[in-house]
């Protein structure tokens, strides 16, 4: 077993783990204060649910067997995997299978969490938990298999370049978000009420954690330490920088100011676009991909107002559009003679197939949830705020310094709860 490569993959896995709470803060700062906890939890719960599903059958469906559409059940519960079990990385070195599985597990976690931004403020938390559990099963695990598990996209000639997940993660989450939004519908007051972010410092903190973690996400995808690892990390930085500037320039010209939210959004757009491409382009290519992604995504986030779908925090405009840009641009910009029309065609097939498959399956899934248990929170709950109705909490204490007078003695008694969600919030607490 190669200790250097295994160690690097483990460190990268820890970095990727940090991205999910980073994403939670990034999204959480952008919603109104009445639903920030719900927004945080929609991401954070993915660490709980998807990690478990990954070890139960996710790893097996994505990375066991050589089927072109999906893996097999040979590694259910990581059956038979021992501490000294290994796999070969791209350089032919043996790395610990546990380290690889952990790294990939955290990819599945954040992909599901990414969709939450589109559904801000208005879904039942129980329905969301079921949604991401089923979604990773029927969408993410198969698509990860297509791209990285030896599935049909990996078998194309030339094979689709998706270094760290432009198709499997970002296009996938962006399209899934779009389909879910079309089923769930708009927030009450969309385009009418002001819905400005309640805490931009939180957004910047989240962006910083994402950027930091993304080095593990991108460079870690080499599954070892070599020249490509360094190139990927380097390109991650400069594409992100270029995208931040690209977004800000567009915004200054179009809207008259260099905004904090624009700088953060541009950085994330750049991170998304360099994800599929950064291991296969030179520094100039990375800068070009970054600046194009920043400017185009800055424009793309306004489409929801024109087209009338309430992708609340622009998962489609940033992740789907940024993912498509990075995936297609690497077709022409790939170095070492790989770039060209044939490669571009493969890239387009990769992006197009994920868009088609994910949209249809996610739409049906969201519709089934909406028609059975109901995806959307009750109107009253949405107006009051899903923090109260779904979690029986509020994020901030707005009472004055000596706010204790607001708390009655009954409320501090621990109370067994037999119901959940809106029912619990509506009932009087019985001590």
């Amino acid at each position: 077993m190669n200790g250097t490569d295994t160690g690097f993959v483990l460190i990268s896995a820890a970095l990727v783990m940090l991205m999910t709470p980073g994403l939670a803060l990034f999204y959480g700062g952008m919603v109104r204060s009445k639903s920030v906890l719900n927004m945080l939890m929609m991401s954070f719960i993915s660490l709980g649910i998807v990690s478990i599903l990954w070890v139960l059958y996710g790893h097996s469906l994505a990375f066991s067997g050589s089927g072109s559409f999906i893996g097999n059940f040979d590694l259910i519960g990581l059956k038979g995997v021992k501490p000294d079990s290994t796999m070969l990385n791209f350089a032919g070195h043996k790395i610990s299978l546990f380290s690889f599985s952990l790294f990939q597990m955290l990819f599945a976690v954040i992909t599901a969490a990414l969709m939450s931004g589109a559904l801000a403020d208005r879904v039942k938390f129980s329905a969301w938990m079921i949604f991401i559990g089923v979604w990773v099963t029927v969408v993410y695990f198969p698509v990860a298999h297509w791209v990285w598990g030896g599935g049909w996209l990996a078998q194309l000639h030339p094979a689709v370049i998706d270094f760290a997940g432009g198709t499997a993660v970002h296009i996938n989450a962006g399209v899934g978000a779009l389909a879910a939004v079309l089923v769930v519908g708009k927030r009450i007051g969309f385009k009418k009420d002001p819905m400005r972010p309640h805490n931009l410092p939180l957004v910047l903190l989240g962006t910083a954690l994402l950027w930091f973690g993304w080095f593990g996400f991108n460079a870690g995808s080499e599954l070892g330490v070599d020249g490509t690892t360094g190139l990927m990390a380097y390109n991650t930085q400069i594409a992100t920088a270029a995208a931040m500037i690209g977004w800000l320039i567009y915004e200054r010209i179009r809207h008259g100011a260099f905004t904090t939210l624009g700088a953060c959004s541009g950085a994330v757009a750049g991170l998304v676009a360099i994800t599929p491409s950064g291991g296969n382009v030179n520094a100039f290519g990375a800068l070009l991909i970054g600046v194009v992604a920043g400017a185009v995504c800055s424009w793309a986030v306004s489409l929801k107002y024109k087209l009338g779908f309430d992708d609340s925090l622009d998962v489609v405009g940033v992740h789907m559009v940024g993912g498509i840009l990075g995936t297609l641009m690497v077709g022409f910009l790939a170095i070492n003679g790989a770039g060209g029309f044939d490669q571009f065609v493969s890239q387009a097939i990769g992006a197009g197939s994920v868009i088609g498959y994910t949209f249809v399956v996610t739409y049906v899934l969201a519709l089934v949830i909406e028609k059975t248990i109901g995806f959307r929170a009750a109107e009253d709950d949405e107006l009051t705020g899903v923090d109260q109705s779904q979690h029986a909490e509020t994020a901030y204490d707005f009472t004055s310094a000596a706010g204790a007078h607001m708390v009655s003695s009954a409320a501090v008694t621990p109370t067994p709860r037999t119901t959940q969600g809106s029912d619990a919030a509506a009932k009087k607490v019985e001590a």
Partner: protein
Amino acid sequence: MKLITAVVKPHRLDEIKEALQAFGVQGLTVTEASGYGRQRGHTEVYRGAEYTVDLVPKIRIEVLVEDDDADQLVDVVVKAARTGKIGDGKVWAVPVETAVRVRTGERGPDAL
């Protein structure tokens, strides 16, 4: 007695407080407020979506004074609050029927 209420720009609070102290005012109440007058609000941009923020942050200062001091005190507050730019706020005075100092039970002007 009169109640003088001033709704003014938050950053003028220190000047007003000092001017009132110089005049001999013993106490006052300050609350954060929001509202708009003729200046209306301002525009903010979030990912290209423009929001008109029409309620601007203000500070509301309340002072109880004896009738004879009221007019002069209004002028003191106005002078301290003024920047000359739109959005400086308003100051007004209304009659007060009674006032009681909670600790001692003193009533009327003695309570001030």
